């Protein structure tokens, strides 16, 4: 992904979605990639997960679960880190994680 996504003018936000900084808006956009809300943070075979962090009700950050169960985050524009749990990033900067989403890992098409 070579674009900076955020629901503000000049930045990319998918057409048809409002420029509203709400958790519902983010969940709806993730929904277009097949992500659905779930409750568990643990690694589930066949699924990949993301979490959305909010502070004062506004989304601030996202993290994605890796195949090894760790989580990866992009901090700012250029820092990629791995952390054991979404709890590791909770604090003043990002607030708390609020929503967990998952989607089935796309399977490669069978070779004919």
């Amino acid at each position, binding site marked *: 992904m*070579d*674009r*900076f*996504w*955020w629901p*503000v*003018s*000049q*930045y*990319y*936000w998918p057409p048809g979605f409002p420029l509203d*900084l709400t958790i519902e808006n983010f969940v709806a956009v993730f929904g277009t990639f097949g992500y659905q809300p779930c409750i568990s943070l643990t690694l589930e075979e066949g699924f990949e997960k993301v979490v959305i962090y909010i502070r004062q009700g*506004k*989304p*601030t*950050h*996202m993290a994605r679960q890796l195949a090894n169960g760790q989580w990866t985050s*992009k*901090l*700012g*524009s250029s*820092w990629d880190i791995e952390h054991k749990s979404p709890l590791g990033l909770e604090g003043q*900067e*990002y607030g708390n994680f609020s929503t967990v989403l998952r989607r089935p890992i796309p399977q490669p098409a069978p070779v004919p």
Partner: protein
Amino acid sequence: MESAVLENDFRKDVWTRTTTRPDYTVKAQAPAGWRLTAYERPHLKNQLIRRHIRGISAEIYFIDRIRSARELLRTAAGKKQAEELSREFQTHATKWQSDVRFISSVADMVLHPSYLRIIGMGPPVVPLLLKELQKEPAHWFQALEAITGHNPVEETDRGRVGRMTQRWLDWAKAQHIS
């Protein structure tokens, strides 16, 4: 220093407003199809004239402010003022860059007190913002839009920081600001 002349070509019934400044002239014609005679619907015509003049004023207001600042730089008092402005800008820009380097939310970046202060400095700070962008692409786009009222970033370039930077630098060049 400044003159604005509103002329009406009565044969064609076309209005033209010419605004003359020391270093440039803006000549704008009323929109095509605007061919009402003063006797037919004067109230509507006057309203259109006022709206049209306001439109031109808004367009040149911002560029005017930047050019006034540039003029000011040529005086000793202006240079001192510019140095203070530049110093204050650098202080806030450095603090902002340091404080938001781990932040993902554009909303949080632009609501940082230093970023808001830079927006509050107004049009004279635009050349400094453009210089920062030239040095290193960063999220100065919202500040530029807030100050200038322009958004030269096209739909296809949204979110692509490198291209957004180039669009702003091209826009500045076209406005003779860079």
